[in-house]
């Protein structure tokens, strides 16, 4: 198999191991099946994203620390959370392109006996699947085609943007990569209004009303388009659309009942894995699973 030999340090971040274990589980299962080796490095901690607003320098060092831990093992990083992806990628850029930043990081990390010279590449799992495995190969492997399902893609923000740090691998105004990944499972990709809109997660801790209002619009548009589920690639989007869906329903006296599924879960189903193996909650995805 040409893609064999893929090996990454799996960067879980904060939200996934505590609140999105289904995403983690399905990613590990799917990666194993496709010949992607994910290595656990216990030293990994927070990526730095939540600290940026208080102190960008501290966030830079937290990100660099993680990049350095992977570098010391000679591994590139595979991320699952889009916010982790953007902070690690942007920090990498700054360290690689700015000698003064590089020197400063070296000096400050020395205080905790760490080092980072700038050689770790960072890729979100979706991009590993796209770039390294390839859509054609996924199509071949996905023998249990999900042709009866209508799936709405949700890109979120930090998977695509800021587009300059990602070398514009996809068009931030008209993205297509997640569409292609979903289509490879045989599922029908459903387009909907305001497809690129943010989940609202970024302001949840500051203004819950605004955050829930933003998420509610997405649920409305996805529902109106007749999708069976919304497909995500970031755990914070799941907090907004899955964990907070009941709250939105109660607050606005509306009913959505929209199943939320991570891309590796969708892919796992197409690879013939069981819902249980992929951490899919029966209670929340019954309607979806019975359609397959």
């Amino acid at each position: 198999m040409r893609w064999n030999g893929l090996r990454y340090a799996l960067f879980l971040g904060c939200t996934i191991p505590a609140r999105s274990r289904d995403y983690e589980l399905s990613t590990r299962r799917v990666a194993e099946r496709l010949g992607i080796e994910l290595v656990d490095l216990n030293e990994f901690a927070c990526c730095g994203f939540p600290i940026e607003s208080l102190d960008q320098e501290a966030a830079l060092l937290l990100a660099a620390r993680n990049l350095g831990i992977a570098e010391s093992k000679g591994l590139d990083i595979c991320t699952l959370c889009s916010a982790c992806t953007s902070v690690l990628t942007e920090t990498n850029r700054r360290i690689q392109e700015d000698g003064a930043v590089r020197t400063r990081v070296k000096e400050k990390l020395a205080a905790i006996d760490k080092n980072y010279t700038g050689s770790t590449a960072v890729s979100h799992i979706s991009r590993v699947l796209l770039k390294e495995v390839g859509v054609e190969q996924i199509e071949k492997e996905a023998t249990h085609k999900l042709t009866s399902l209508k799936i709405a893609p949700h890109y979120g923000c930090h998977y695509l943007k800021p587009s300059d740090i990602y070398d514009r691998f996809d068009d931030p105004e008209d993205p297509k990569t997640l569409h292609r990944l979903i289509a490879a499972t045989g599922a029908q990709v459903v387009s909907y209004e305001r497809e690129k809109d943010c989940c609202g997660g970024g302001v949840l801790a500051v203004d819950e009303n605004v955050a829930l209002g933003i998420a509610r619009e997405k649920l409305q548009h996805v529902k109106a388009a007749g999708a069976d589920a919304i497909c995500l690639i970031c755990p914070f989007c799941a907090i907004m659309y899955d964990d907070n869906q009941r709250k939105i329903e109660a607050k606005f006296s509306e009913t959505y009942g929209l199943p939320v599924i991570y891309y590796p879960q969708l892919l796992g189903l197409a690879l013939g894995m069981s819902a249980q193996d992929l951490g899919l909650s029966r209670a929340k995805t019954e309607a979806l699973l019975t359609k397959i």
Partner: protein
Amino acid sequence: MKQGRPQSAYTQLDWKFREEVASVPGGENLNKCYQCGTCNASCPVRHIDEKYNPRKIVRMAVLGMRDRVLSSDFIWLCSSCYTCRERCPQDVRLPDLMKALRNLAVKEGHAHPSYLAQAEAIASHGRLYEIEEFDNKRRQKMGLPPLPTKCEEVARILKLTEAGKTA
């Protein structure tokens, strides 16, 4: 805020503020803004609640309304979706500018309490959400490897920087 006469409002302006902002990473392009409002038109937060007005925040910062900008809640409302950063014809980089303004606000004692709580959690557990023994048991039950419940190095990094002084 109480509206004074034009004369007193004028004396409250800090003409050096735009330079101060431009000296913080992310604030460099503040002075490029020509007030077209593309940020406002693109903003998902403003789409829900018009109290958030990124174009106006930039204008206030350029004019030198230092205290009002740094003590206000609205600099904490950017969801950092980066839509405006993609579209801004002047490359002002609003989400980065908001981070720069927040960093300055933190130094003035105006850190948003939610962010302080997050920093405290990260300093104590190395992560935003604590992994307790109970969580590790659940993880193992699912076939997931256990994770460390602490990270001393993260606490040390935070202590060495501004984040640690405020948290």
